[in-house]
């Protein structure tokens, strides 16, 4: 009996496989499918609520896992974007420094060490930063520090591998400066004012100030001549004071510093 059914199945397969789509067995199958259709429709309608419920929960599970995957992907992309932005910013900064080092305004007689800033001042009133280069790189006390934009400050403490740099905006920093247009001499203090400029000297708003780089006998300024400091923003004077009141805006944006160039005298 079972053997007959097996043979019958094989015969069905053979005939069905060999005949055309309009063949007898196909037509029988088509008729059978038509008969079965109402049962299938009924089963489909009965089972639809269950299927919808299954689809709903399966969708929820899928949406949850999809949500987790997308969140993780967004987080990775965000980190990647931040790293890219940081790298691009650092790249631009280093290009500026390279350009400055190769330019004609780079002071002669000086080597340089590029050092990234590794620590910022803990409070706004401490205008100092720590850079990751020290005496092992040839840095000494009072070496001038610059960027492509201009003067940053001076080294005020040196360790083997790190140094502390007092920024131009630090209260203790004073720099002899000269007005490029009028040759008026003075002292830039705390990166904000151009002091000791006599009333007989001329300083105009918009003038550019650079380091004076003086020499007197055996003494010399710690800053080489001609490093840009800033631009004059206001000029005033009164009857009482001996000197003019000159305000300036430094060229360097001290809030966005990431690495600095320490100038090292060659003849030291």
């Amino acid at each position: 009996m079972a053997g007959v059914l097996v043979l019958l199945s094989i015969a069905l397969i053979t005939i069905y496989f060999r005949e055309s789509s309009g063949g007898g067995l196909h037509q029988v199958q088509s008729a059978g499918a038509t008969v079965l259709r109402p049962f299938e429709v009924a089963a489909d309608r009965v089972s639809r609520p269950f299927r919808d419920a299954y689809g709903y929960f399966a969708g929820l599970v899928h949406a949850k896992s999809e949500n987790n995957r997308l969140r993780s992907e967004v987080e990775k992309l965000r980190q990647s974007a931040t790293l890219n932005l940081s790298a691009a910013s650092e790249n631009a900064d280093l290009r500026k420094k390279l350009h400055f080092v190769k330019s004609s305004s780079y002071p002669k007689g000086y080597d340089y060490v590029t050092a990234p800033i590794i620590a910022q001042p803990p409070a706004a009133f401490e205008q100092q930063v720590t850079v990751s280069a020290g005496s092992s790189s040839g840095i000494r006390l009072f070496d001038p520090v610059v960027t492509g934009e201009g003067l940053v400050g001076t080294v005020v403490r040196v360790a083997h591998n790190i140094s502390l740099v007092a920024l131009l905006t630090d209260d203790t920093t004073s720099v002899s400066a000269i007005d490029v247009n009028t040759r008026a001499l003075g002292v830039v203090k705390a990166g904000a004012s151009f002091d000791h400029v006599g009333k007989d000297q001329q300083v105009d708003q918009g003038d550019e100030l650079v380091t004076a780089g003086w020499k007197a006998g055996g003494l010399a300024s710690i800053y080489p001549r001609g490093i840009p400091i800033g631009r004059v923003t206001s000029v005033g004077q009164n009857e009482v004071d001996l000197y003019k009141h000159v305000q300036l805006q430094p060229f360097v944006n001290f809030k966005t510093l990431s690495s600095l160039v320490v100038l090292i005298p060659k003849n030291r």
Partner: protein
Amino acid sequence: MTADIAKGAAVLFVAAILQVTLLSQIDVFHGAPDLVLVTLVGVALLRGTIFGAAAGFGAGLVVDTATLQTLGVTSLLLTIAGYWIGRYGETTGRDRTHAPFVSVAVVTLLYSLGALILHYMLGDPASASRVLVDAFPFELIFNLILTLPVYALCRRLFRPPPSGLEEVQLFG
């Protein structure tokens, strides 16, 4: 016997319709429960080779007709499956608790292999890794989960045949 045929036909017909309309749409890594196969195991275990083979043949025809697949493919596989399970039930396995689970596990594997070979011979696109590696574990789990309620229903519909030893009450 006629009642058994009617009940068997009804149960397998419902199983086949549910299979093609509802259960085939469940897709977990290409695996879906096979209610027809599990029901056939229950029926064949309790009613033997001839009944199993005939039930498999009929159920296969319904499935092939409803899904417009090559007529006879599912019939062939289910006929052999029904016969083998019926033989197992008649000889050793019918009264054992684990018999339906063992039968379902073995027949699920053999059915998948057989279907793969048959479709390959007919020139249908059949991926062995998809059928045996991806789908088979989930199909096996689904079928084993279905075994308990389906076999319980089959036992209610098809009382196991009495064993050879029965108590005889003598009158007088």
